[in-house]
């Protein structure tokens, strides 16, 4: 990682950490904000948090890997997430996932080599009334079908 990116992360981290007291119970709040900001939790950010909260890097790593929302690798430009909650499962969300795997040629949890798409699965986003659902960068698409998914993907391709 080049020095300028490193410095940028450091200055962003300063801003984020400035909002929190240096008490250990703020760790998950801070990680949530870092994840939101960078799309993953960079090692430099972990080091900054470690110093600020006086928690070992190992412990921070332990927390990051425990919670599924936190990732250690950068996400693609578009994160497409298929809900595999029960309501969606019963309504056939596996077919959506199969289609995505086929079109993006990646497994869930991975990012395409051009950095454009990340594929994720999620356990229920609470939109069960309009199952099955998938999300693109957080935007929810309800009552989804493979056809609808294809349309969304075609549109993303054009961008």
């Amino acid at each position, binding site marked *: 990682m080049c020095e300028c990116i490193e410095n940028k992360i450091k200055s962003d981290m300063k801003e984020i950490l400035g909002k929190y007291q240096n008490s250990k119970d703020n760790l998950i709040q801070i990680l949530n904000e870092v994840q939101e900001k960078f799309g993953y939790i960079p090692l430099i950010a972990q080091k900054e948090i470690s110093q600020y909260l006086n928690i070992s890097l190992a412990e921070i790593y332990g927390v990051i890997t425990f919670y599924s929302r936190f990732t250690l690798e950068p996400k693609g430009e578009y994160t497409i997430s298929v809900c595999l909650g029960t309501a*969606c*499962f019963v309504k056939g969300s596996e077919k959506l996932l199969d289609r995505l795997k086929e079109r993006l040629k990646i497994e869930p949890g991975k990012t395409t080599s051009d950095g454009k798409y990340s594929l994720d699965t999620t356990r229920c986003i609470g*939109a*069960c*009334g309009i199952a099955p659902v998938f999300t693109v960068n957080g*935007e929810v698409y309800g009552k989804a079908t493979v056809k609808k998914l294809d349309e969304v993907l075609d549109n993303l391709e054009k961008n």
Partner: protein
Amino acid sequence: MKSIKEIEEIRIKKRKELDLRVNVNLSTKEKHILVCQGTGCTSSKSPEIIEEFKRIIKEKNVDNVRVIKTGCFGLCAKGPIVIIRPEDTFYAMITKEDCLEIIEKHILNGELVERLLCKDVDGTLVKKLDELNFYKKQKRIALKNCGVINPEDIDEYIAFDGYKALEKVLMEMTPEEVIEEITKSGLRGRGGAGFPTGKKWFLTRNVEADQKYVVCNADEGDPGAFMDRSILEGDPHSVIEAMIIAGYSIGATKGYIYVRAEYPIAVHRFDVAIKQAREYNLLGKNIFGTDFSFDIEIRLGAGAFVCGEETALLESIEGRRGQPRVKPPYPANSGLWGKPTLINNVETFANITRIILNGAEWYSKIGTETSKGTKVFALGGNVINTGLVEVPMGTTLREIVYDIGGGIPNNRDFKAAQTGGPSGGCIPKEHLDTPIDYESLKEIGSMMGSGGLIVMDDSKCMVNLAKFYLEFTVDESCGKCTPCRIGTKRMLEILEKICNGEGSLEDLRKLEELTITIPKTAICGLGQTAPNPVISTLKYFRDEYLEHIKYKKCRTGECKALAKIQIDPEKCRGCGICKKNCPVNAISGEVKMPHHIDEDICIKCGTCISKCPFKAIG
């Protein structure tokens, strides 16, 4: 800062303004267009509808009409929903393009826009909300304000008796009296286990400590459940008010709400509500001028199902991996940072203010002998009216699925319903008339759970369903105790074998053994209940397991590995190798002619697939 008197003034003034929301026979010129901004409708672009309405109203200079965003109306399947008050017209599946017609025809000319009215399951055109069968058997207590008020306006909450219960508690009741009232009401924990709420408050009150905490568990992890989410999105103040009352009752000055980060709208609305409550000094120091102080902080989860378990949740609030603690000590004695802590679920809290205002006696008349009040269910899966329903305890599953839910779509048959998510069990057809209450559900091998109610039609394979739930549990096991970490994994492996047609009766025996040992040895609720989906599907659908094992057959075709093995006539050269190798002589055909597999004889051993030199079998 507002005094009791000032709050009362807001209540009276605002209530007059909002009377048309609840009083359908009111003759007034004014109209309120309510647009659902719950999760379901929001993802069907309902925010755009609000903007469009506002734009048209401004452009056309329409008087006496307001556009209000509300929480969930419940009937998510028909979303986005628009309701016009006071006449209570129910418009379904509205798009941006429909707004102009609604304004021109309905608002300006007083005519119904018939093409946008909702059709009930039997095909009748429904003009008013309460004509819908979906609402007829419901009773809204916890969801009373959802779909009625703007959740981001504290004055609207106050107008409908908001913060009146808090006033009553602080001015007229001792903490003991509050706890007594809650105990008498018979309210039990809505998170799933059904522990008596009053008793929990009593136990926490009776521990001496310099600091105590109130925690609201909004880590709604059951996949297929969105009750808590809808309450937080539609009526956040009802939870805040109840948490303050709980704080007063047990002697706590600090509260935390632990919400899933996957629920951004709920988090936002709760945050707005906290800020508004602080402005009015309903949160903060010396509430209503008394010496009681209380404040609430939001803590976000980060995607771990186990954090819905109360002690894991506490670990997570403290900033650590959400691994459950060994109980006892229970949180009532040693919870957050070792201090006595009261943990209640969102829906439990949402009942509190109604009990205080209407009295324990009123509440205890609703429901059954042992389960009082109502329960909110997230009705999903293969049912026509998916959405959020609140029914009195004791309502039967048949009433929920058929009368409220409208039955099963696509002319299929009901097969089973799952309550309690991955910790619960399935309820088959023969138990459709079981009244829904804590005890009855337990008796038939399921549980109340937090309120997820997933209906499945006869196209669903129950072995595959059990496998789905075990995949979930294995994924979400925190890894602290061996029975859960390794035991559930072994169960999943066996289920995978069975679904792949590789299972034996010996596997089934091992699976059943695990369903006995894991509940006895796992340390927390997640592990102890993980085998439930297997136990209940084995109890009611054992024949399906046996079909998978003995006949390598999945009657629904969901288990792909058990799908039919066929020979592609285009690729087959008729070499006869498959025929020679088939152990049960299921393959027939003339040399150099395409061969054929007799399904009834085939045992799906896969030998032919591996022997075929032309990859013609699959």
